[in-house]
């Protein structure tokens, strides 16, 4: 028999809020986390703005031992540990005892690249013929699986502990991997999520591709404009999101708070065939991913009330809306409410999916649908597909039963997950 899978813990380290209450308030009130970045200016970036979590307000001694904090430069690792440990304690779980791991708990925590600042310093040491001076933590701060290794050790997880990587799909894919593992009875609890570093070495490649906005350096909060006619590219971001997934049986047994149920999730790829490429999605694959997720969840497309899109604020946003519309067979006023949180904190790359999944699930908790920002001028192509009332400009009270979240990434990869408000039957 397959397990039902519920969400019992959330943690987040986002550009517009660290911790659930700060983040929830920021999403509810449309507060931006996008700021001017002096270092990007000094380095002649076209886009000199970004969203990154303000960890200066956080006491890192709560999350790391003093030995771990020495020489810790991997910003993604810091964000991931904050989000991951917060999610674990939010779910009422404690780290495993000293003498044995918790065999029923695991971690799938993804990233794109980890610890680039640390890697940069190590490269300088190597190139200077001075590798012996680069210290003991270069490997653990720069291996992709550093984040799952840190979390797995801090919490004492004895089940699968791994890191996935699928570009901007990473976070949502991690959630689906954990969901499947619990569903199949291979684990009782999985900490899932993803993180992404801050800084010029992560964001520079995108600036070089000329896909970031360059005309908002004086006006950062208005730069990220998902679904807007005046969108000119995505604003780079960073951070981490984390969710504790748990078999319903385990959650009920320990009387845990249940945020929502994960009722379906699918990942696929367009194979970079047809119009799909390394950087562009194959619409047939996107639609197939959404349709399969709906089928996997055992619901009718008409039951989806809210969508949190990938919607990065590039020229591809109208195509994404069209794909959702075709996949669900719903258009005009019949289309669900749709929002993108990227207007507030930009595109957090590998961390995007997990931060946005946390935001999506918070809508159940707060009985709200969060509004979009910076899209008063909805793209005319979008209005040919759906009615403007489907794109809330402000948060409003509503208790959704079923919500969908999708992420799409470089490499023509897709992930779509379906959440449902928890009820016994």
């Amino acid at each position: 028999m397959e397990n039902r899978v519920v969400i019992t813990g959330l943690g987040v380290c986002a550009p517009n809020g660290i911790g659930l209450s700060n983040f929830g308030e920021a999403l509810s009130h449309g507060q931006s986390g996008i700021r001017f970045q002096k270092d990007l200016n000094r380095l002649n970036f076209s886009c000199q703005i970004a969203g990154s979590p303000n960890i200066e307000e956080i006491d890192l001694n709560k999350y790391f031992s003093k030995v771990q904090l020495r020489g810790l430069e991997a910003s993604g690792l810091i964000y991931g540990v904050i989000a991951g440990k917060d999610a674990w304690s939010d779910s009422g779980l404690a780290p495993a005892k000293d003498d044995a791991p918790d065999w029923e708990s695991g971690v799938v925590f993804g990233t794109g690249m980890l610890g680039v600042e640390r890697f940069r310093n190590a490269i300088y040491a190597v190139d200077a013929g001075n590798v012996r001076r680069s210290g003991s933590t270069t490997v653990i701060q720069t291996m992709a699986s550093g984040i799952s290794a840190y979390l797995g050790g801090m919490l004492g997880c004895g089940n699968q502990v791994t890191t996935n990587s699928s570009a901007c799909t990473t976070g949502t894919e991690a959630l689906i991997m954990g969901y499947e593992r619990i569903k199949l009875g291979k684990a009782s609890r999985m900490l899932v999520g993803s993180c992404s570093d801050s800084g010029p070495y992560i964001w520079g490649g995108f600036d070089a591709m000329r896909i970031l906005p360059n005309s908002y350096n004086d006006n950062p909060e208005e730069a990220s404009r998902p679904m807007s006619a005046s969108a000119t590219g995505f604003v780079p971001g960073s951070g981490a999101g984390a969710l504790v997934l748990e078999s319903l049986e385990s959650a009920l047994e320990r009387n845990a708070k249940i945020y929502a149920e994960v009722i379906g999730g699918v990942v696929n790829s367009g194979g970079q065939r047809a119009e799909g490429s390394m950087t562009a999605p194959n619409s047939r694959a996107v639609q197939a991913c959404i349709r399969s997720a709906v089928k996997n969840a055992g619901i009718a497309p008409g039951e989806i009330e809210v969508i949190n899109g990938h919607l990065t604020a590039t020229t591809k946003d109208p195509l994404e809306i069209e794909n959702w519309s075709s996949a669900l067979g719903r258009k005009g006023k019949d289309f669900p409410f749709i929002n993108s949180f990227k207007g507030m904190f930009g595109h957090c790359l590998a961390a995007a999916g997990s931060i946005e999944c946390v935001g999506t699930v918070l809508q159940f908790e707060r009985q709200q649908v969060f509004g979009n920002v910076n899209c008063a001028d909805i793209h005319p192509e979008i209005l040919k597909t759906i009615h403007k009332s489907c794109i809330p400009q402000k948060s409003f009270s509503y208790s959704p039963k079923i919500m969908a979240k999708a992420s799409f990434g470089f490499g023509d990869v897709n992930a779509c997950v379906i959440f449902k408000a928890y009820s016994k039957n």
Partner: protein
Amino acid sequence: MSEKEKRYEELKEIVANYLPEDVPSQSISLESHFINELNINSANLVDIVLDVEDAFDIMLENEDMDKMTTVQEALRIIDLKIDNKS
């Protein structure tokens, strides 16, 4: 305080940075074994060596590191390196 005592104090300060949370810095003595008694992660011995190099302006070879198993041994090697310098 003699020169050697000062070195001992300085070394204790460096080592204290790498102690696990549950080992108090007062437990460092001349006889302490870094790994077996002070419970220092063997990977962190590398970092102790680098900090020692910076603090005393000396260079430690891999063989030196292999011999640095206790506080006393570390001090002996540090003294030797400093004496050789002058």
